[in-house]
């Protein structure tokens, strides 16, 4: 099980009823989708206290703690006596006190290690709190110190600082600019170097970095700074899953790489630093694991960002130039294996896997390899499925057919023509359009294929499409009937 049990959202699992949980989860998912449409999709993480972690049950009010005598001592020195009780109810009270954040910061930098830890925990909970009275503006007083402490040696303390900063990143562009100016990126680089053996801290670094670069309206300076900082090789070195610790750190680093690649700021630099090579070899490793049947819980969270990263990096240059980094033919097998394995559980992942294949099959080398490894039948079997899967598969098949006559003949041998007869009847007009395009390529490449299509009773299907009220498919069907059928076929085309 992941260590990630320790890092939870405060909502957690309230209510022991599974149905209630599932209902809440569905509602939550709807909210997230709405948020994404409004470009407001952010998440924050809460690091649980160690004793709560052992406890195992999640109670939102369990974070009731009284700060130790250090705080009250300090306060008493200033002639006011009050103690911090940290539950979500007390935040407004806490913040209404004058200089409350300043007091926390003082303790953060103070000599007492226990006070430091407690103060960091308070700040962390404040950063995570959704309470409207928590003003990140006031939390900003703490950030220079938090950033400084990232180069410290204490893992637990560093982890708290990291998650606090990570929670603050999505708040506003000003916050991010400020963090950048205060040197968060070199600090992260340093931190991951110092704590490279402590995977919990590495995970926290990955999370914070992903929050920094994935927030909306990321300024033009953040990503170039990351690319130039030397963080990339360190992220790449994390990309070997540790079987004991779990997938958490790798997942965070992979999402960082995805956000960097899809921003398309300087993908050439990413490739030059070895990103494509590392991501593809990890995908192959995961493909092998999937083939052996050992599908870990949450493996899709790792496959997803890797696919996206590879898919976008394939456009960073001509495929011929990238080929040395793509030389393992098992990558193609893995890209065909993921849709089969995840079709029923995560169809979107299947679709993205085939999207990567689309970007790869722009080159005849990879098309030839698909035939050599006999992977085309696996693709053809995906044609009945919607969710955009069949459209993406048709794109791949179109790419292959476009290469030439040999490729078309091989496609027909793999059984494409009967499959096209079925896709031509589908309800989605886009599917029919793509099917007609692919069919056109096949029939034009060799008259044998046109005859084979007629033998498969494909003619009536084309004739039926002529009666459609969708012009795109009507024109294409008519064109195919007029120009590409064998001469002996009687064709009934509409005037």
């Amino acid at each position, binding site marked *: 099980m992941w260590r*990630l049990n320790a890092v*939870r*959202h405060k*909502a*957690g699992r309230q209510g022991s009823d599974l149905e209630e949980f*599932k209902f809440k989860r569905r509602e*939550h998912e709807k909210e*997230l989708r709405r948020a994404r449409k409004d470009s407001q*999709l952010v*998440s924050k993480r809460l690091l649980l206290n160690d004793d709560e972690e052992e406890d195992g049950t999640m109670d939102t009010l369990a974070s009731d703690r009284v700060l130790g005598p250090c705080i009250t001592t300090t306060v008493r020195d200033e002639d006011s006596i009050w103690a911090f009780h940290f539950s979500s109810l007390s935040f407004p009270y806490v913040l209404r006190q004058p200089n409350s954040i300043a007091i926390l910061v003082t303790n953060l930098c103070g000599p007492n290690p226990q006070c430091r830890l407690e103060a960091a925990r308070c700040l962390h909970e404040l950063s995570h709190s959704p309470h409207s009275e928590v003003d990140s503006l006031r939390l900003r007083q703490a950030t220079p110190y938090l950033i400084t402490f990232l180069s410290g040696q204490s893992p637990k303390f560093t982890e708290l600082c990291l998650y606090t900063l990570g929670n603050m990143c999505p708040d506003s562009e000003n916050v991010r600019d400020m963090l950048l100016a205060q040197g968060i990126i070199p600090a992260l680089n340093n931190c991951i170097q110092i704590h490279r053996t402590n995977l919990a801290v590495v995970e926290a670094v990955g999370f914070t970095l992903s929050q920094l670069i994935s927030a909306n309206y990321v300024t033009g300076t953040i990503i170039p700074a990351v690319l130039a900082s030397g963080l990339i090789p360190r992220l790449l070195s994390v990309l070997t899953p540790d079987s004991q610790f779990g997938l958490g750190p790798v997942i965070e680093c992979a999402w960082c790489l995805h956000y960097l690649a899809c*921003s398309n700021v300087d993908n050439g630099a990413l490739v030059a630093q070895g990103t494509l090579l590392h991501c593809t070899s990890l995908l192959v490793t995961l493909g*092998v694991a999937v*083939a052996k049947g050992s599908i870990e819980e*949450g493996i899709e*969270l790792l496959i*997803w960002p890797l696919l996206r990263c590879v898919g976008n990096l*394939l456009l960073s240059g001509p495929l011929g130039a990238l*080929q040395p980094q793509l*030389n*393992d*033919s098992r990558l193609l*097998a*893995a890209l065909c*294996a993921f849709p*089969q394995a995840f079709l*029923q*559980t*995560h*169809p*979107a992942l299947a679709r993205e896997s085939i999207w990567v294949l*689309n*970007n790869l099959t*722009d080159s005849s*080398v*990879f098309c030839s390899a698909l035939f*050599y*490894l*006999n*992977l085309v039948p696996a693709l053809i079997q995906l044609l*009945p*499925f*919607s*969710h955009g899967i069949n459209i993406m598969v048709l*794109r791949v098949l179109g*790419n292959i057919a*476009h290469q*030439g006559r*040999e490729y078309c003949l091989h496609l027909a041998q793999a059984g494409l023509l009967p499959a096209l007869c*079925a896709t031509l*009847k589908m309800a*989605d007009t886009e*599917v029919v359009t793509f099917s007609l*395009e692919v069919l056109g*390529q096949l029939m*034009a490449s060799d008259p044998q294929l046109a005859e084979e299509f007629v033998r498969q009773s494909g003619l009536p299907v084309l004739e*039926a499409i002529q*009666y459609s*009220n*969708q012009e795109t498919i009507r024109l294409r069907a008519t064109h195919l009937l007029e*120009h590409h059928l064998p001469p002996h076929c009687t064709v009934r085309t509409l005037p």
Partner: protein
Amino acid sequence: MLQPELIQLLTASDLVDLRIDAIPKLQVGFRPGCFFSSSRSQDGEAKLTFIPQQILLNKDHELFEDGDIHRHLYLQNLSTCPAYDSPTARQCEFRCYISGCSQVFSTVEDYEHHYNTLHRHVCSSCQRSLPSARLLDIHIQEWHDSLFSILAERQDMCLVEGCGSKFRTRDQRKDHMIKIHKYPSDFMFDKVKRIKNIKIAKKNMLQKGTSMEVSMSVSEPEGVCEVLSDQPEEEEYMEINHSLEPGILDPASNPINTVELSTDHDTAPILSVTIQPTTNQQRPQHNRERHSYRVPRTVCFGQGSVQGFRGHGRRI
């Protein structure tokens, strides 16, 4: 779940050469003058426009939505649910592309059955669909062939495949088919009647004093809305006098299931199914044939009210 070949590929031993550049490359290119010249039509407009295209997806692309949601559910610790009800892949549906039909089916077989029943072997003159090419030929000959209709001696063919007998009258053919080919006497030889409201038909039957079987037909789709003609009584009389046979209904999967009544003295086409024309297509001029019996002839809305409607039951 995974095909054995894929498993083998991925778990292959190190001895196998897995390098892409070791794989032989197939020859690229088409025969000269083969494809690209003919992909354009005579007016020079490209009809087939597909070209390979690498696709770059940015962070907010809609294709990435499900993955992002999954990621954030994980960050918020809501993804570890034992019975995760995620979206599953759906099989594509099939649609009939004949203009105006637009029915949707969940399997290819359903679609093909629909197409074969309604859109194959269609008579282009009267939009009727016949079960086979042979019956279509016979229908065209008997109904739309002007030369045939003026022959001194009719030559109605026997309907059974392989029997070439010809007859001078419909009744002779019918007798032949019953006697020789052992067809049931209530087979749909001639007229078929479409009756919307069984109550009306029975009422009419009682009025006219004939007893016969009545067949109910399935409700017609929207779009066929005919006003009753001015003299419904006479027509009904004529119709009832003809023999009524239970219609051969289409399979239940097809909701378009109407059989036509011809008011001509000629008999209706055999086993024919009328394709309901939609507003897109022109309607054949058979106004008198399509009666909607949805509105009952006489309805009493309480004491003292007019029995029946003003006018002749115009359908609302």
